[in-house]
């Protein structure tokens, strides 16, 4: 019987060679997620190593400037390695170690997940190999070197469109080649069961902290919670704890690229159809013949043709609203936050910031918006400069 379903989405659409590996992972995860020692160890890593809990920062300047709802920023950008990705990799790499694996493999787009995985592997003493689209290795040469510095081996992926989706395919292929001593540390709430569940659980620390921190500051729940969505791990982690609180509006911002009426987009909910790819049933950008479409976004981290299955379900049942945000809008928010608060957000996170800027003025002053800043924007500075026609050397 099919496992890991979220409504009609999810499942395990994966070659037979990997089925036992997924079963083994599921079994191990079921055991360790309620194991006291594992949880103490993970929490210590979260707090002492990654710098959790991350701050919930009241963005006073932004709030005053927009003149509406109070805006809080969940500062995942302040985590070690600079994004929410560390939450997931510490959990999965620790799990790999407990399972007796000696090697982890991972895909990466912009390099955030790759750097995080290489970091966790260095810390916990496991071998690490990263698969990254050849195109992305050129766009993000600094991150390639960073991963190598951390002891990881980086494989440029030359197949297909040479970007994130091909990196995922190639990591899956590598896992079928060498499955016994290796765990695939998937970077988002996607792929076959149990990955969407494991990654969501590990990232759900974000939403739990938001609830607690906001209660300390405001003694109430937020009215609106916003996060950016590619595969959707920071959004799933942000939303998960609020799903049952029906008065909290949840909004995911997906990458519209040059616009959802153009082919240069990566908005899976706005432009995609139900499909089966990378081990899951979910919404995918695809051609009329069911080929996976080449996608585009200024943000390498959102440049993926699909979205995690639980997001697809939350869209179907209308619990989360998914909104496309274009490159230009994201760049506008990137600059706005930099100037207004002195915080340079990741271009991914800037998609979420844009929507907050848009809706805050229309809301009441006693209403609260929380935006998750999934990562910091240092990695994007050179690219933003290019986008604006400024020629700088990285």
């Amino acid at each position, binding site marked *: *019987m*099919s*496992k890991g379903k979220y409504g009609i989405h999810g*499942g*395990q*659409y*994966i*070659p*037979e*060679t*990997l*089925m*036992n*590996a997924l079963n083994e992972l599921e079994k191990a995860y079921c055991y360790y997620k309620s194991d006291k020692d594992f949880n103490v160890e993970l929490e210590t890593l979260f707090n002492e190593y990654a710098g959790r809990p991350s701050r919930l920062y009241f963005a006073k300047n932004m709030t005053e400037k927009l003149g509406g709802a109070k805006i809080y920023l969940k500062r995942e950008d302040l985590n070690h390695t600079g994004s929410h990705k560390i939450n997931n990799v510490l959990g999965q790499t620790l799990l790999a170690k407990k399972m007796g694996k000696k090697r982890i493999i991972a895909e990466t787009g912009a390099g955030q997940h790759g750097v995080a995985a290489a970091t966790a592997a260095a810390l916990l003493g496991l071998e690490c190999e990263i698969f990254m689209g050849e195109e992305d290795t050129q766009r993000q040469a600094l991150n390639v070197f960073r991963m190598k510095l951390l002891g990881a081996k980086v494989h440029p992926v030359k*197949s*297909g469109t040479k970007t994130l*989706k*091909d990196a995922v*395919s190639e990591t*899956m*292929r590598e896992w*079928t*080649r*060498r*499955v016994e001593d290796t765990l695939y540390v998937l970077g988002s709430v996607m792929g076959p069961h149990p990955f969407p569940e494991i990654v969501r659980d590990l990232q759900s620390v974000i939403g739990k902290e938001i609830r607690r921190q906001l209660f300390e500051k405001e003694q109430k729940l937020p009215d609106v919670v916003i996060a950016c969505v590619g595969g959707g791990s920071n959004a799933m982690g942000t939303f998960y704890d609020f799903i049952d609180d029906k008065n909290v509006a949840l909004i995911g911002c997906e990458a519209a690229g040059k616009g959802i009426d153009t082919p240069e987009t990566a908005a899976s909910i706005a432009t995609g*159809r*139900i*499909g*089966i*790819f*990378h*081990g899951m049933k979910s919404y*995918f950008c*695809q051609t*009329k*013949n*069911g*080929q*996976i479409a080449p996608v585009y976004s200024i943000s390498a981290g959102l440049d993926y043709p699909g979205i995690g299955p639980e997001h697809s379900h939350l869209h179907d049942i209308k619990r989360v609203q998914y909104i496309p945000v274009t490159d230009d809008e994201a760049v506008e928010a990137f600059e706005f936050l930099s100037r207004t608060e002195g915080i340079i957000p990741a271009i991914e996170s800037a998609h979420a910031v844009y929507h907050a800027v848009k809706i805050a003025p229309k809301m009441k002053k006693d209403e609260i918006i929380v935006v998750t800043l999934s990562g910091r924007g240092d990695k994007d500075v050179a690219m933003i400069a290019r986008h604006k026609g400024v020629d700088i050397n990285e």
Partner: protein
Amino acid sequence: MNKISEIFKNKKCLITYLTAGDPSLDKTEEFVVALAKSGADLIEIGIPFSDPVAEGEVIQNAMARALSKNINLDDIFNMASTVKKKISVPLVFMTYLNPLLTYGYDKFFKKCKETGIEAVIVPDMPFEEQREIKEFTDKYGITIITLIAPTSDERIEKLARQAEGFIYLVSSLGVTGVRSEISTDIGAIVSKIKKITDVPVAVGFGISTGKQAKDMAKSAGGVIIGSAIVKIIAEHKENAAPKIAEFVSSVKREIKS
């Protein structure tokens, strides 16, 4: 007895694979005829997919070449139905789920039946997800080929018990592609399967020479050769037919001997 199982009666079977539309559908038709005439007992036609996660480089590239010609499923059905008139060897489709989901499962399997396609091999659909298409394969009498891998271990029993047609035994870890050596203990897995079912076993993944085919066919009922043929097509393109025929006849001679 299942029609496909019948071809394994009293002989070692040679199953061959090629990708539809590489380098063109007309050529695929010609190559299928060449395969049949040179001794293939069953022909697997691959439906190209943009992101075939179970394939190695050789078949990935073949699928990319085919897709660059903008062929679609209707074109492939037309080709298959023309070629069916010229040969009697059973045809099966190898396909990923997404193109079928988009085309419509009911329509796809109905057309399989009308065209005379006997079975489907779906690398991204493990046993647990068969419900995805089972209703339609049952309705139109199309067989789902079961894959068993070197990592299947305790799953073998449940997989073999419901298998029909033939069992596709994956020889090695990893994806499709030519291998110089196959280290899996195929004999041991085959005998485990034989204790559970009479459905014949064919071994695939990595087989590229007559000698490998002969070794594999010792314990199994047949072998599947894909990438080695696709490589010949990649090299000789439009003129590949005689080269394919030469290769297939030589392998066939080896496994018979």
